[in-house]
């Protein structure tokens, strides 16, 4: 694989016209990735689902070359109906269009960030891979006191013109004081067996609000990895909702640093999985100062041969008194071949805190089914009704009513 990596990397560098400095930077990331390789189960964070094995089994050898100098055709049929929105269209590893036509253009700045890859103090070879192969990193800045009128939808799409087996996207958002962004990640895949690697960095200044909804609903055979890093200043709020249902493999990581007082983070997730799907959410919330809050609710419905994993970590620094940190994960196993894994972790160094986690898993409650059947529903209907209610609980947590309805329609939940 390493030869292929190097070969494809050199080819990409040739087609891209980028300064020497950036080439060197990319080379250093590639070198680091080659040293470490894909993460595997020996690493604690990858214990439950081993990505290197899954790539080998589902895709085989990865290839990395795409000619990023050529544009891709945009297929408007993928657009979401019935909701006015701004768009970023990402096709085959290339950002084709950035459209903020509903907004006041002077309040949004979009920069092509040359030579500024996103760096974290975090060991993760997939981030190195991303930094080495993303063709352009954009920085989107929302100016002070501006709330976007319409949500922004990022379309993640692939079509049969794709050459490589791996695409990478990296975006950097900055929300200035008192600004607000609603961001939807919308996945529509028209090709098979690609590995999609997404990296977002969010910088939330005082009183800003970020709402990020990741909607992976349509069944496809791609593998996806997404990493959100969120830095939060005083009184800022971040809300992340993950619908994890479409891809063969999807791992969502959210790393949230609550650096400012009275900041809060919410992470809610739904796994709805069937044949051979393996999905994971891993969240890390770092409470670093006083008076911060975090809430997490993750629910899974697992069908035949499917597997979900939730690793949630709440870290409370010794300075972070008066922290509230709550975490709850629940799973319904529908088949004898389904599997649920959880590792809800608390690491606490301050004493005046309220932290708790809970995890429950099991089959559908027979008594509830009996109750519904005695009211005239058949077995299948009763089951569906119970699952509906189980998942609705999480979807109701979405604070934006427009998007909540969109998500309900996508999942097919009834009230």
């Amino acid at each position, binding site marked *: 694989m390493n030869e292929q990596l190097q070969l494809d990397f050199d080819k990409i560098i040739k087609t891209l016209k980028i300064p020497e400095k950036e080439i060197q930077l990319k080379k250093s990331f590639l070198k680091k990735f080659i040293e470490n390789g894909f993460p595997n189960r020996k690493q604690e964070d990858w214990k439950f689902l081993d990505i290197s094995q899954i790539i080998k089994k589902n895709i085989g050898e990865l290839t990395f070359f795409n000619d990023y100098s050529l544009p891709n055709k945009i297929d408007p049929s993928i657009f979401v109906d019935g909701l006015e929105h701004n768009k970023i269209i990402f096709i085959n590893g290339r950002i084709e269009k950035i459209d903020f036509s509903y907004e006041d253009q002077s309040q949004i700045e979009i920069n092509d960030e040359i030579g500024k890859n996103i760096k974290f103090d975090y060991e993760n070879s997939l981030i190195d891979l991303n930094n080495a192969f993303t063709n352009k990193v954009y920085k989107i800045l929302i100016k002070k006191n501006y709330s976007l009128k319409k949500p922004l939808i990022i379309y993640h799409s692939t079509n049969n013109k794709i050459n490589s087996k791996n695409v990478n996207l990296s975006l950097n958002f900055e929300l200035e004081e008192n600004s607000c962004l609603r961001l939807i990640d919308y996945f529509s895949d028209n090709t098979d067996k690609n590995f999609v690697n997404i990296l977002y960095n969010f910088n939330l200044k005082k009183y800003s609000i970020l709402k990020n909804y990741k909607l992976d609903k349509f069944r496809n055979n791609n593998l996806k990895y997404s990493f959100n890093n969120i830095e939060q200043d005083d009184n800022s709020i971040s809300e992340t909702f993950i619908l994890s249902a479409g891809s063969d493999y999807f791992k969502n990581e959210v790393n949230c640093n609550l650096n400012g007082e009275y900041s809060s983070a919410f992470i809610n997730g739904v796994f709805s999985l069937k044949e051979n799907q393996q999905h994971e959410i891993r969240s890390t919330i770092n409470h670093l100062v006083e008076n911060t809050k975090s809430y997490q609710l993750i629910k899974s419905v697992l069908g035949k041969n499917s597997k979900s994993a939730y690793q949630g970590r709440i870290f409370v620094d010794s300075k972070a008194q008066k922290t509230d940190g709550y975490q709850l994960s629940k799973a319904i196993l529908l088949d004898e071949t389904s599997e649920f894994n959880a590792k809800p972790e608390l690491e606490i160094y301050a004493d005046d805190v309220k932290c708790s986690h809970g995890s429950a898993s*099991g089959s559908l409650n027979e008594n509830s089914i009996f109750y519904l059947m005695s009211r005239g529903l058949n077995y299948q209907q009763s089951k569906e009704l119970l699952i509906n209610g189980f998942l609705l609980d999480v979807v109701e947590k979405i604070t934006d009513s427009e998007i909540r309805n969109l998500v309900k329609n996508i999942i097919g939940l009834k009230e």
Partner: protein
Amino acid sequence: MDTREKDIEKLKDYKYGFTTDIENIKAPKGLNEDVIKFISNIKKEPQWMLEFRLKAYERLKLLKEPNWQKPKYPKIDYQDLYYYSAPKSMKDKPKSLDELDPKLLETYKKLGIPLQEQARLNGIAVDAVFDSVSVATTFKGELTKHGIIFCSMSEAIQKHPELVKKYLGTVIPVTDHFFATLNSAVFTDGSFVYIPKGVKCPMELSTYFRINASQTGQFERTLIIADEGSYVSYLEGCTAPMRDENQLHAANVELIALDDAEIKYSTVQNWYPGDENGKGGIYNFVTKRGLCKGKNSKISWTQVETGSAITWKYPSCILKGDNSIGEFYSIAITNNHQKADTGTKMIHLGKNTKSKIISKGISAGFSDMTYRGLVDINSKAKNSSNYTQCDSLLMGNKCGAHTVPYIKNKNFDSNIAHEATTSKISEDQLHYCQQRGLNPEEAVGLIVNGFCKEVLQQLPMEFAVEAQKLVGISLEGSVG
């Protein structure tokens, strides 16, 4: 200083910190095949036992010391330890208690276990392990009447080789992890219990462990077998003298419960925790594992962990038999610079198996406490269930409390429920108690005992009282 302060001062000191001057026989320092042969030879072991040890040693050479645990410690030089140390007078084992070295008896008296009196009064059978060898087992007559075998491991190897051979290493194989394998290679003594079919052991069995000599590691091995339909309750207590150096204690405990049998294993661990600055203390790296081999069997672990510089252990249950039950009740208290990484593993293999985990962690001072546990329900373990509750209490903001549960559910018929909370003693509770005339220390003691109640209830009477006191003493000086 008024009397109360003096009292506290006294209590703060580790009361078992004395050493006993007894002439020791030691194996040459270091770990190699010769030392293993020396140990085996001095204990007059049969060939198969030596082979067992050497096999473990071969395996050990391939293993690396694990380092994923939360409390880190300086590297242990395994060549700088004595692997065998025995009081000289034990060379020819005394036949009865009267022949014991009076100094030894004195030591045990100081520890609060006068062996002779115990034999007469309490009706608790005691096996005492001093450094590496088992010194005395009381109450033999009564036990023999029921066909119960309760003796030291070395005696069992001599007298009941068929039982030892059949069960030793079946729960913790020689190919296990680093410390377990080290123990398999160099273990010196420990207790052996066999309860025959249908016998309910009429008294509590108890072992007292004591590390006396310096630069020694204690590697005891305990094996308890409960045959069909039997019941036994086993208690274990530990102490060690105060020393500046860190001493290693790597024991293996294997429990085997056959059809309808029940084993209740209680530990009050009070090894020397080191001084206030974190100097010295015992490294308690113990492997405890129980196998519910038969149908309807039950294994229950109860532990009160107050001592040791570092506690690193996970008493586990393998629920292999259908309808078997595993339980784990734990109180772990860390103060000053103590560190603990403890919890349990419940591995459900059989149908209708049930497990329950109640863990209470209390950390104070500069200490660090981690609950780490695994609940794994296998795809064949139909209709199984687990309930886990782990609560932590923090005192001050220099200490840490962590919870790392691993939950794996591969069976759709089974239920797992896990809950964890972290909190501190509320000002309201303290205020209420003080209003009723308790001083702050007493108030904390009362609240902490309430916090631990669910676990303390599980201990046998004699131990419960001691444990309750221990909980209070361990936290002295941590309030205010």
